[in-house]
């Protein structure tokens, strides 16, 4: 098998530790603790977990927005951990990020046209108005909006602006950090469809970070479930939904609302995270082709 577009191995990111000037060492928090995953070109991997499970950190470290404290990130065959900002710049053309809160993700003092054009300017490309107008059309916005400021837009429109900026350089990989969580339910579906259209048109690969599994089912081919900084289960979407192995995965599945009122509700599995912190020595085992589960 050819090397995947993105290969993350044994990634570690810790916070705290011996950095305080006075007093002793602060406790070390392993936000991302020895996780491995890969994303093939044109594929979508869902990264799912509750708040604080380390999924957003994993996304940021993957893009080298934060340094890794251990492990490796290979992108298109190149090791990108430990690169200088100058060495990273050509890599950044290829990988982009979309954020959760579209209200905080736009510079309030910058016209949205300039904001979308910025990646082109930074990488010395032609940022002509026509090209920006095309980007606006691709994400379903009127190019006449270019000269406006962010506060004039709704949440869904803002997220479209962020997406236009992210695809301006025609990247091959995008980390989408809960891009629909902050949006109205009616808008969520539109944005998910936009993600899918862009994937078909541009051959994008996504790392789609989410805290529940409902949208992941429509958007992703494979899913990785995170718990307390560890990946506890990785499998294809079909395997996760038909044969969930880890108790935490099952509790996430049970949390999805069932749209059929006649169907009896599944009993909620009471899953207590605090008493189910994955033990340090736990390892992943392949229980079916492509289906890995963390063994207790």
């Amino acid at each position, binding site marked *: 098998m050819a090397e995947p577009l993105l290969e993350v191995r044994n990634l570690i990111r810790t916070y705290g530790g011996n950095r305080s000037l006075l007093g002793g060492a602060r406790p070390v928090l392993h936000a991302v603790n020895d996780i491995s995953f890969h994303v093939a070109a044109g594929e979508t991997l869902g990264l799912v977990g509750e708040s604080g499970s380390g999924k957003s950190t994993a996304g940021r470290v993957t893009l080298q927005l934060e340094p890794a404290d251990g492990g490796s990130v290979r992108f298109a065959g190149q090791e990108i951990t430990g690169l200088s900002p100058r060495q990273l710049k050509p890599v950044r053309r290829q990988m982009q990020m979309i954020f959760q809160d579209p209200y905080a993700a736009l510079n309030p003092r*910058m016209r949205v046209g300039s904001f979308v054009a910025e990646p082109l300017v930074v990488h010395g490309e032609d940022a002509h108005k026509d090209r920006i107008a095309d980007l606006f059309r691709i994400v379903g916005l009127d190019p006449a909006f270019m000269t406006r400021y962010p506060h004039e837009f709704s949440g869904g429109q803002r997220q479209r602006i962020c997406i236009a900026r992210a695809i301006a350089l025609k990247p091959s990989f995008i980390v989408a950090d809960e891009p629909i969580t902050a949006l109205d339910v009616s808008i969520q579906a539109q944005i998910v469809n936009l993600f899918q259209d862009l994937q078909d048109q541009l051959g994008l690969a996504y790392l789609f970070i989410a805290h529940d599994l409902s949208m992941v089912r429509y958007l992703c081919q494979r899913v990785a479930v995170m718990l307390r900084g560890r990946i506890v289960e990785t499998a294809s979407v079909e395997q996760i939904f038909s044969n969930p192995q880890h108790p935490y995965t099952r509790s996430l599945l049970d949390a999805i609302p069932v749209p059929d009122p006649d169907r009896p509700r599944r009993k909620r599995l009471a899953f207590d995270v605090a008493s189910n912190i994955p033990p340090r020595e736990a390892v992943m085992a392949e229980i079916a082709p492509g289906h890995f589960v963390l063994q207790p």
Partner: protein
Amino acid sequence: MRQFFSELSRSKAGLAGFILLVLFVALAVLAPWLGLEDPTRGSLRARMTAPTWDGFWPGAHPLGTDEVGRDILSRIVHGSRTTLAVAGAAVVAGGIVGTFLGILAGYAGGLTDRILMRLVDIQLAIPLMMLALLVVAALGPSIQNVIMVLALTSWIRYARIIRGQVLSLREREFVQSARAIGASGWRIMLRHILPNVMTPALVVATLELARIIVMDAALSFLGLGVQPPNPSWGRMLADGRVYISTAWWSVTFPGLAIMLTVLGVNLFGDWLRDYFDPKTRSAR
């Protein structure tokens, strides 16, 4: 702009401050065309003339003359030119340096931040007036030196406030997003952070303007500001205080000019701070 004035007209204090400020700036700008006497030429025959008023009409010296017979009104109006020019230049110079260093400290963090902030702490521990006296005494009193020394006492206030703003801004997602597209640190500081700290910088600037006008007057009073015969408010106070018991007008009117300008700037600055603060804004 229209919203600015409609908000301003709702605050009596803010409006009063704004009008005072506009009045003094207009006087300073229009001074040569107001038909006033030469502020540097006196007439010994007319020395120590009390304010001359003919009923409600001002006479030859509506605010009187000083000990060498120079017209006080003319000296106040012309003095406002130097005062406002010196204070304005010092505010701009201090604001640019302070804002830049505040952004640098906040965004770069680490050693840069610690060095800059310790510098601020050290300077705060030295009485500002003493520092100003020291520098002017060492370099000699000239307009450039006065501007420089006033800016030197001013940059720390910008640096501290701007740094705090930057600390929260740099974690915002649009800054992260700029890093994700590979923008350089300079680009992020200039294009993403600077426009978002302009508002607090502007508020600090108005409050600093008031402080600097007083400090400029104090330096002139001590003889370290603008040199005679050019008029300056602080100098007029210093020269007139000898005659305070016989010619009350020689100190009263320059003192009033200082007070009204500073009051105007302070009132307007306070209102401006409230105007830009989203919390007090929504309460209105």
